[in-house]
């Protein structure tokens, strides 16, 4: 089945395409933001670990 009508010049086609693209972009963007924060929250542990090791060296 062809989807050429989806990329037509009518307002209906534009709005249908915009609705589907908006859903994918916003949902994907939010999931991407969580993934980014997840990685950042994991990295935040690194300085703490290095701080611990330097403390141990001092001891």
């Amino acid at each position, binding site marked *: *089945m062809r*989807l050429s*009508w*989806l990329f037509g010049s009518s*307002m*209906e*086609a534009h*709005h*249908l395409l*915009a*609705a*589907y693209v*908006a*859903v994918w972009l*916003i*949902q994907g963007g*939010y*999931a991407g933001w*969580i*993934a980014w*924060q*997840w990685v950042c*929250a*994991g990295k*935040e*542990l690194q300085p*703490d670990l290095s701080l611990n090791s330097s403390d141990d060296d001092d001891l």
Partner: protein
Amino acid sequence: MKRSHIYRTVGMVWFVLTVAAIVYATRLALVVAPTEATMGNVQRIFYYHVPTSMLSLLFPYVNFVASLFYLGWRRRDPLRAMAADAVAISAAEVTVVFSSLSLLTGMLWGRAAWGIWWTWDARLTSMLLLWLLYVSYLMLRKLSSTGQTQTLAAVLSVFAAVDVPIVFMSIRWWRTQHPAPVFFGGPDTGIDPSMRPAFGWNVLGWAMWGVFLLVFRYALERRRQEREQEAALKSIEGTLEIAQ
């Protein structure tokens, strides 16, 4: 096998199945489902708009129940209360995402079908109010600097949940610009059987996606809470060492 590895594997499998379900559901909606007689192809927004709207009325209850547990546990069992709070903030964010998309897809559909982007009818206004309430909840969480932020947010979420049945019932209580209920609206309501697979798969796919977002966001919040606890403990240890 470590528990974290099991969670990660389950999460990856769930994610792959969810994306596959959404891709399949989108194909059904755009290619397989018949063109609606009155509105034409723009009616296909229905397959994204309605599942998104349904889920935006479901996640507030996750936030509501988690907030009640937080309020109940905050003095007796602070560790469990923190977990409930993590569920609450995750559900609030997912609610904002789904309700934003419900409003956006509704406006795109409304402009094409009715000729207007917006009207202050009962369904649209109560949905906008729901969105504002959960945005307020997140703003409170982000900007408040008192030690009672979680408690204030939990109380706000109890009031915000009251709007959910009003949104649901608005098209039953009042005659509005928004169409009458398609489901659970009486004997003459429902969709054509040929449209059901596309609709059903979209509900399933987006519900799976919502659960994925909720669990992933919850895991992130728990990780943040652990970091904050570690930092607080280190601070206390440092203070004790200085005192000695």
